[in-house]
């Protein structure tokens, strides 16, 4: 067993709405090894996105501990979490969330603006990230000039441009057709196998889940099943 990239200990998350407590996660214990591709599945309201948000430092647990790398997120302030996110986590969203008025290159560059870095170095990093996702020839295109799959690739380039240890993907293929989804999933496989990224992906699609090495099934805030798969061959990770 490798070093744990992510470790959750007895994590509870309760939302309060009109004085009513809604438990979302119930004493979750989880350990994700560094460099694994983990798929998170479960019905709506099972706590998948909440778990992703806790690991991504976007939300704090009601109780319990969340460690990512050397950082205990439950002990950090909002400001510390903001800085931590910019350096250690890459986010991929279902709806891409690209800035429509910026080009692909400018969208990818956004996280780098938070680093002390020369413009030349930023440009170089952006070019590298876009070439990893196979879009170096679309650098100057705006989101409305790209297909859905290309937009998601730009979003992936934005997520990896800072070279984070962990990538969190919330239904990254939820808005794409089967063929395009396959390309995106292969790309995630590539990031996992060739670049050693720890990936945690939420999905409803069993076919997408097959790309991971481990599948966690959540239901009503409880980890119901934890299944290990044979790792997919890196050769399958065609990015085109």
């Amino acid at each position: 067993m490798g070093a744990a990239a992510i470790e959750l200990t007895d994590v509870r998350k309760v939302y309060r709405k009109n004085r009513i407590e809604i438990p979302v996660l119930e004493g979750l214990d989880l350990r994700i090894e560094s460099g694994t591709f983990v798929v998170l599945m479960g019905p709506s309201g099972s706590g998948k996105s909440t778990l992703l948000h806790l690991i991504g430092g976007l939300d704090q647990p009601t109780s319990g501990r969340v460690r990512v790398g050397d950082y205990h997120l439950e002990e950090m302030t909002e400001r510390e979490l903001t800085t931590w996110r910019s350096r250690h986590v890459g986010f991929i969203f279902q709806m891409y969330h690209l800035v429509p008025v910026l080009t692909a290159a400018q969208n990818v560059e956004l996280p780098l603006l938070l680093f002390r870095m020369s413009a030349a170095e930023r440009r170089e990093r952006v070019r590298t990230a876009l070439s990893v996702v196979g879009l170096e020839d679309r650098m100057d295109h705006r989101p409305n000039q790209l297909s859905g799959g290309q937009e998601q690739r730009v979003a992936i380039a934005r997520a990896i441009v800072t070279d984070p240890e962990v990538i969190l993907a919330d239904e990254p293929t939820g808005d794409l057709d089967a063929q395009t989804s396959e390309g995106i999933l292969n790309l995630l496989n590539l990031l996992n196998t060739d670049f050693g990224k720890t990936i945690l992906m939420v999905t409803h699609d069993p076919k997408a889940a097959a790309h991971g090495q481990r599948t966690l099934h959540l239901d009503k805030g409880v980890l119901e099943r934890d299944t290990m798969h044979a790792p997919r061959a890196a050769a399958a990770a065609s990015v085109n």
Partner: protein
Amino acid sequence: MALPFSYHWRNLLVRKTTTGLNILVVAAVVGVFCWLIGFAGALHSSLATASDSRKLIVLKSGATSESNSAIRTDEYNKLNQIAEVERLPGSGAPLISPEMIVQVQLPRVRDQGTTRANVGVRGVTETALQVHRNIKVLGRSFAPGAQEVIAGVSAAKQFGGLEIGETIHLGYASDRPYRIVGYFSAAGGPLESEIWGYLPSLMNAYNRAMYSSASMLLQPGAAAEPVITQINGPAIQLKAQTEAQYWSEQAKNIRIYLNITYVLVAIMSLAAIFSIANTMFSSVAGRTREIAMLRTIGFSGVQILTGFLLEAVMLSLLGAVMGCLGCAAWLATVGRTKDMFGATTFTSLAFEIQLTPMIILAALGCVALVGAVGALFPAWRAARVQVVTALREA
């Protein structure tokens, strides 16, 4: 590092209609602001240049201006006893200028003579040029006893019929018109809006036996206050004021006009603030997911707030540039000279409105502030977007 400039610029461009409307609102405020400040500055500098600290204006006790003042010769003669008055070397004659002011209606040049305005006609003696030290005669002055007058450069510019060689009818001497023989300047002061002629001739033309006022030049270093007390006192019983006090009182109604305009500009600025606030609110509402994404990837609330403030300031500054250009175009088209009535003389006082770099800088500064104030609450709201909630709504 903040969000890139192009991000804000393009966000303004994609909202063409609201951006355009905001620019128009701000441009209107800035245009009026520039004109107003230019006018206030012209008024201030005109009155400042008109004010000679060594000069006193003497009126009839109880009079508020030269036009409702009448000084008898015996009253005027009492002024000669004042020791602090400057005297001519040699003759020792006191530098006191007896003067009479009347009005004549002349057609305005700016509307091709459709409307007419009152222009002050001042009867003076040779002493006047030594008492009013900022007067410079351009060309020839009127000859004592001749039917001649000289026109102030500002009056000549604003009113028709004041070209050299032209004649005007003054008083009851309609069969003997006065010829314009020269111009005079008064360092931009209000006297430049007048016509000057020889005092005895004009008194005769208007059938006057009394002076309107007397202007006197004090010796260098002489304090004005004791002299004013002496003139206002029982021995002389006239009313003396420093020149600064006199012109300040004459410009009172112009100041009221300016104050009303200041209030209007303040109201317009409020409208601009609300307009910008409204635009920024809708901009924030339309970009909630974008803001949530930016917060997710590590931009802080302060950076988001600063970004939205910057966007509003950019929007305002675009309007400000348009407003300054509009004001400059207006002044170039309509002319920089603005004439207004004095509070009590009912004669026209003209001012040259200047759109100076300082005014433009002040306008840009004020407008940047208006933009920032308008965007403050929407920007604060943007900075406090609940990231998790916004991402879920996506």
